[in-house]
């Protein structure tokens, strides 16, 4: 019995030793495991944070694309959102108010086992000019949000935009331009410069003195995937402007002149403000031309001048203007034609008479078919419809020049300046000629004059991001 007792007590002592060692080892393993878990958790949280942001940004990107599609497709913007092919948006009645609408959906594709929520916030308008996309994605315990602010902007930008199909002719004569091409004919005696590129469905033909950089030209776009839509066809769905909207604004602000003589009377010694419309009938005895006798100080307008050819004008009929034309005129005292750094602008105009301010006119009350202009809108500087306003005299025009007709800009004077800062948008080709000694002809692109162009509805617009948060 003694022997047994002795053996048991020795075993107990050994077990205690083993137990301490095991505790020590387990403690070491536990502390290492704890450290590893801590690092893994930290790493996972960081990874979740990053993944959640990427999912939310991805969902926002998808929503941007869907917003663009809804805005630029035919049928109404909100109908397009509701029938979105990748998943219809639903109106969020809790967040929507009478002033703003919120539509949302859950985005799961192309993610794997992950969803993100997107919301599109817009003003309550059939053609909203701005939208905000908010997307949320949660990974683990992390939720990240991405916000993208979007605005509807004009989709094309260049000093000259010509949507006429044009011809294959390669010369630089006026007749080649009249076929719907862009022709810039400079001279060694004068300075000619086109700054900001040329986009043309037809050909762009220039000579060595044209000041057109060959790498800034995109031509013969007709029939290609880059074709410029027919923005100037007066009967097409793509036509950018409804001239009647501008005429309505002019009538409301007392700026509508039914013939040349009344326009001359009003503008002979005054600067006209706002949207100014002059109706020129083919039968008007003054319709043969305008010169410095009519406007000894030039035609001076702050805002928009719309020349409304009416009553029998054909596309090739022209009204020659040799009087100086100053619309949103820039200070050109330091102008060096070949140096874009010296180009200044008078756009946007400031209006001293509130009654003439097109941005505050309530067009819709008097003409329900037309929308009011908003403060963000870019209004063209010069517009004319079918018929040619042949500009021969000095010109200082800042803003977009728009016409479905052929544009003829010929610097006929000696030492005179023709300066266009904005963009020329033509539907019949353009001919720019500058051959006289010491004369300057400049056409330069100003994105600020065109990016918010006040087209009808969403015509010519694409959705572009202007801020991300």
């Amino acid at each position: 019995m003694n022997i047994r007792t002795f053996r048991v007590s020795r075993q107990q002592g050994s077990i205690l030793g083993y137990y301490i060692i095991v505790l020590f080892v387990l403690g070491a393993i536990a502390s290492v495991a704890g450290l590893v878990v801590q690092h893994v958790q930290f790493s996972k949280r960081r990874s979740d944070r990053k993944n959640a942001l990427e999912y939310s940004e991805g969902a926002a990107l998808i929503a941007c694309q869907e917003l663009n599609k809804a805005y630029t497709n035919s049928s109404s913007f909100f109908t397009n959102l509701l029938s979105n092919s990748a998943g219809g948006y639903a109106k969020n009645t809790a967040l929507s108010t009478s002033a703003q609408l919120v539509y949302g959906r859950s985005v799961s594709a192309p993610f794997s086992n992950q969803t993100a929520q997107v919301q599109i916030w817009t003003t309550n308008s059939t053609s909203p000019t701005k939208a905000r996309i908010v997307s949320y994605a949660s990974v683990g315990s992390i939720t990240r949000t991405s916000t993208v602010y979007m605005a509807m902007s004009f989709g094309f930008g260049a000093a000259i935009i010509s949507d006429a199909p044009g011809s294959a002719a390669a010369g630089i004569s006026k007749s080649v331009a009249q076929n719907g091409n862009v022709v810039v004919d400079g001279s060694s005696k004068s300075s000619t410069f086109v700054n900001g590129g040329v986009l043309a469905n037809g050909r762009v033909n220039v000579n060595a003195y044209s000041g057109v950089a060959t790498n800034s030209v995109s031509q013969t776009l007709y029939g290609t995937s880059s074709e410029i839509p027919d923005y100037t066809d007066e009967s097409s769905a793509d036509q950018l402007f409804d001239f009647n909207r501008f005429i309505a604004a002019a009538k409301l602000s007392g700026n509508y002149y039914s013939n040349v003589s009344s326009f001359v009377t009003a503008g002979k010694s005054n600067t006209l403000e706002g949207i100014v419309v002059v109706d020129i009938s083919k039968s008007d005895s003054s319709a043969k031309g305008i010169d410095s006798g009519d406007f000894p100080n030039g035609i001076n307008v702050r805002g928009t001048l719309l020349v409304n050819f009416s009553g029998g004008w054909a596309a090739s009929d022209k009204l020659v203007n040799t009087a100086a034309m100053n619309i949103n005129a820039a200070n050109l005292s330091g102008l060096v034609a070949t140096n874009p750094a010296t180009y200044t602008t008078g756009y946007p105009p400031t209006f001293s008479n509130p009654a003439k301010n097109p941005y505050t006119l309530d067009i819709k009350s008097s003409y329900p078919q037309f929308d009011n202009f908003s403060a963000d809108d870019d209004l063209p500087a010069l517009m004319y419809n079918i018929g040619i306003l042949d500009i021969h005299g000095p010109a200082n025009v800042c803003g977009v020049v728009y016409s479905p007709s052929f544009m003829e800009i010929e610097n006929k004077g000696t030492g005179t300046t023709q300066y266009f800062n904005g963009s020329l948008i033509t539907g019949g080709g353009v001919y720019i000629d500058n051959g006289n000694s010491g004369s300057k002809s400049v056409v330069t692109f100003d994105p600020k004059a065109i990016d918010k162009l006040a087209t009808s509805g969403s015509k010519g617009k694409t959705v572009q991001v202007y801020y991300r948060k």
Partner: protein
Amino acid sequence: MKGLKGHSAASPRRRQQAFTIVEFIFAAGISGIVLAGMVIFVAMASRSLQGITMQNTVNQDASHASEYILERIRLANTLAVSGGGNTLTLTFDDDPDTDSNGDTKTYNDRDHTEQFQFANGDGSDTTTDDNKITYNANTATGTAVDLAPNRVRKLPSTAVFTITNSTQVLVNFGLVDSYSNDLFQALEIKTSAVRRNSTN
């Protein structure tokens, strides 16, 4: 029989309980070698573990700092670098639908300014233990917090922040651990980000 039994049973056990001096020395030698091996193994494992842990910590710190800097650069609307590439200043428009600077553009305001800064604690960049990158979420009202706490080093002949093309920021820095027992862990970050907002 009983005494004989008891004698015959106890005697062999007493012999088994004892060791000869040779056996003892041999056993002690073996045990010593095993113990020494274990100590060395534990010491090396411990050092290795310390190194892995510190490398992991350095990785996490550097990743966190660089990812956060890049995130903020992408959302800024202006960038500026000063102090020989030690300070990166970013501006943000808090409400892109409100024109707070009155220039008719709603999205180009500089409503608040954030700042990342490489700072050394003792006036010397070479002593890395007190070098850090700080972040101030609003320079007008906030105070800087440590984004990469200590151990930050500047890479040779390279500024921490560099702007290229006015829209891209190059970010270059290292983290280094000067503790010898974990084998001087170090890591270098060379990355860049392009701001996606603008004031144009």
